[in-house]
């Protein structure tokens, strides 16, 4: 889980072009949107693309988005659960 979260942080910084954020500065449980890292709806779409490209995962139910994308940890848990269920 720790390795996956570290990889995710690096991928988020690269995919979202967060040039003034270092991966290690993103907290495992830090909210990614609004007052947290300040990501927006376009960033959410880019994370969906990231999950598809890097992990082969598609979000079947868009209503799950806010829950899955809350933090790096929730995304990592989603990836782990998805990969385990395969």
């Amino acid at each position: 889980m720790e390795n996956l979260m570290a990889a995710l942080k690096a991928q988020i910084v690269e995919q979202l072009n967060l040039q003034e954020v270092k991966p290690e500065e993103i907290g495992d449980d830090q909210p990614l949107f609004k007052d947290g890292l300040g990501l927006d709806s376009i960033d959410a779409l880019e994370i969906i693309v990231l999950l598809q490209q890097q992990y082969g995962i598609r979000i079947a139910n868009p209503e799950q988005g806010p829950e899955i994308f809350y933090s790096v940890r929730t995304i990592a848990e989603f990836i782990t659960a998805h990969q385990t269920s395969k």
Partner: protein
Amino acid sequence: MYNGEAYITGSCVIRKNQVYRDGTLLWEAPQEQELPEFLRGGYDHFSGQYPKFHKMDPLSKLGWLATEVLLKEQPLHYPADKVGLVLANKSASLDTDLRYFDTVKDIASPALFVYTLSNIVMGEISIRHGFKGENAFFTADVFDADFITAYVSQLFAEEAIVACICGWVEVMGPVYDVFLYRVERSGGSVVFNADNLQKTISI
């Protein structure tokens, strides 16, 4: 009451990796430096503290940076809905359209897609400075000073605006050229007309 005249109260030119304000060279990067690096350098020099900049396409970055230079030390203190934006260029958003098209072959990039309209640059400028006034983006082969003067003057005459940022923001691949003007209903000595638009940016 509007007296029928407006004034050019500032200008910014960005070309050949140089940034000018009111005809004075403020900053330059090596001529061989490529556009992305030049834009990052300009952002670091003139602004910083605006991470959204890094997500913009080159067209938005150029317009945003030029406006930053233009207003940094002299912000426009007018009601938000009275500041207009009238920009023009040759290539519209083609520079980004082509890069977006490349991503469509794999997975289309949402972050690129949102910049596949030339007027998005005005949105980025408006968000930064809180402008909510009239805006328009025109596409033409060359900068038509007579047309821009007439259009902006009409906005002043209708009292739709009391100030305006207008000019040219062009980019296509590595080739770019930007010149923006700050125009106000009062407070200047250079009358806003086509001749003075051309003279003001003669570098």
